[in-house]
């Protein structure tokens, strides 16, 4: 049963990492336009690959 002593914290840590990543994605606005995000993946954005002028 001693295995539990590091397995439970390991599970919590991994879950916590996922939770932190989710919080970050919400904060950076990735959930603000769910309809647009679904469509954008299909867009041909080759012209954006050109070097920006700044």
């Amino acid at each position, binding site marked *: 049963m001693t295995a*539990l002593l590091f397995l439970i914290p390991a599970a919590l840590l991994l879950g916590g990492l996922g939770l932190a990543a989710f919080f970050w994605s919400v904060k950076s606005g990735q959930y*603000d336009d769910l309809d*647009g995000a679904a469509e954008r993946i299909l867009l041909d954005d080759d012209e954006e690959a050109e070097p920006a002028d700044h």
Partner: protein
Amino acid sequence: MSTAETTLPAPGCPSNLEPAINADIVDPSPFVRRQPDGAARLELSVHGAHCGGCIAKIEGGLKTLPGVEAARLNLSTGKLSVSWRGAALAPIAITQKISDLGYRAAPFDPEAAAKQEDLEGRFLLRCMAVAGFAMANIMLLSVAIWAGHDGEMGPATRAMMHWVSAVIALPAAAFAGRPFFRSAFNALKAGHANMDVPISLAVILALSLSVYETLNDGPDAYFDAAVMLLFFLLIGRYLDHRLRAKSRAAAQELLALQATTASRLSNDGSLEAVSVRDIAPGESILLSPGDRAPVDGVVVDGVSDVDVSLVTGESAPARMKDGDKLFAGVLNMSSRLVMRAEALAEDSLIADLTRLIEAGEQGKSKYIRLADRAAALYVPLVHSLALATFLGWFFIGDAGLRIAVMNAVAVLIITCPCALGLAAPAVQVVATGRLFKEGVLVKSGDALERLAEVDAFVFDKTGTLTHGGLRLANKDDIAEQDLQHVAMLARASRHPLSRAIVQAAGAGSLAGGIHETPGCGVEGVIDGERARFGRGDWVGDDGAPPQTDLASSEAWFRIGANRPVHFVFEDAIRADARETIEALGARGLGVEMLSGDREAPARLIAEAAGIERWRAELSPAEKIARLEELSRKGIKTAMVGDGLNDAPALAAAHASLSPGTAADASQAAADFVFQGDSLGPVLTAFEVSKQARRRVLENFSFAAFYNLCAIPLAVFGFVTPLIAALAMSGSSIIVTLNALRLKTGDRKETA
């Protein structure tokens, strides 16, 4: 100018979710924000963008403008933010470009734009994530506890597992439960109970009981059930929030409309773009063709055809000259006019209508959602049951305080309205998604509930039963060659007749050397010959009598020395209007037409559509009066309309629909906005609403049935944490699956 021909893409949404919009171009200069580093930023509300192609078209188009660094369109809210550098770009070029692409753009007030961020949605998402995280981790421990229930797990290990669960569950519930605790607290403070009261009570009691059990090394803890409950309910809450956010975005679009700009003419003859709110009575305003009157006023210079259809419902354009009164919202069509403002924006007709709309919406907010009606029955019932269980075990069963409290809490947990909380939002999200695919935008979840209840439909005439804009009526009499030639001129013009030509001819090229003479027409060079499209005497027709029929407009086209070709435009009835009205009648619904137009054209359309009950020459207030008369008779009506004059009636009706070509105020006031040339979506929206209502009721009866089975178990003390967890997740999954059935629609029901 060279005669090189350029090919223009077809305007509007490439997926045909909405027709191209004949937009008024607004100068957004007063709304540009200058950043300290020299960059300029503008927030616009874009109307008509529905698919990925629209994103590519708008963002790609704007990036071709000089100095534009970034353009990003949010498809969910229709908000576009553009930033650019340098003085090479006039802000009006941005709205001009968007309008050329077939969309309408109105500037956002920077203050309103700041409020746009969906903070509530982010908050719910965070709560949901925390509840999900806690649920998964506690479940991991709980499964071990249930598996080791028959002696394999020692009490010490079990106690440790309970402690770990408590450490996860308590802060998670304190974080994720806030939306429910807050709403329950507010409801109790106001002296009534809502669905959040039993939810909060169940979560708090389940957690306290579990902590008590853990402290006393007891076998049963409900940490998993408490956070699972929060997780499922938060999913429902978030779905519901997304639906409401859509309707809020529409309301903000109305605000954006009021924040538009106008061209003010100073005494020295110079022009200045100002915000409409800053126009004072007595000032002169220039209306170019394609501009809308920003405030009520009087024409002081110029003669022009003015489209008053959005204000009065009259489809034929009116000729306005010196001294004629213009209402805010009318569209100048043919040549430039100077008007003198006579009222402030907030005292103008459009503001009066806005007030009527607000009054109507207040009435609508009294509507109680199905779920809340269910909660009103449910809450007292469940709480008395829990109390009865406690009293029963304590006094009759003589089981001691601990067992009595345990069983009373088990009743609260097992009856907690998990399925109820998910039942309505899940169905409404699926129904909304299905209607969107059919070209109908649903603005709120309860709109579906309200539309399913109506007994009668009331239609407006212009723009609802008819197409609203002028269309080429004699296309069959015109040679294809002539149509393509005239379209090469028309593509360069914003005049409504030119727009009608482009609509009939489709995408194509431009003629060279194009010049537009306001009030006369467009001329250019095609195949080396001079061509003109416009008024008969200007084009040089050979004495053909001008048409006097007010319901239609005409124009002539002549290339070189050829015979002039006659084009007739009129506002035609939608092709499937009669069919749709008959289908509504066949479902036992009453159909009526209320028009602001004169009696003769109204009679013509009513007869063509097969509507027996109709009234003409009604003011907005008279339309509302008729709706109220109907509702006093106990008839719930759905209003279908598009004009500014319909907006108050749309807001006051039990449910309302408006076509995508409608005035902004009407689209903002309506519950549903349907796209395309046909009236069929009205019927589809009604059918899907009916089905959605059936699904919601099915889900409620399922939840009731489940409670009927589970409550006796809980009352008599047979519910363990394992049974509670199974019952809760099982019922939520069944409710969600039942909602998904709506996605395809039952063939039998739609047939």
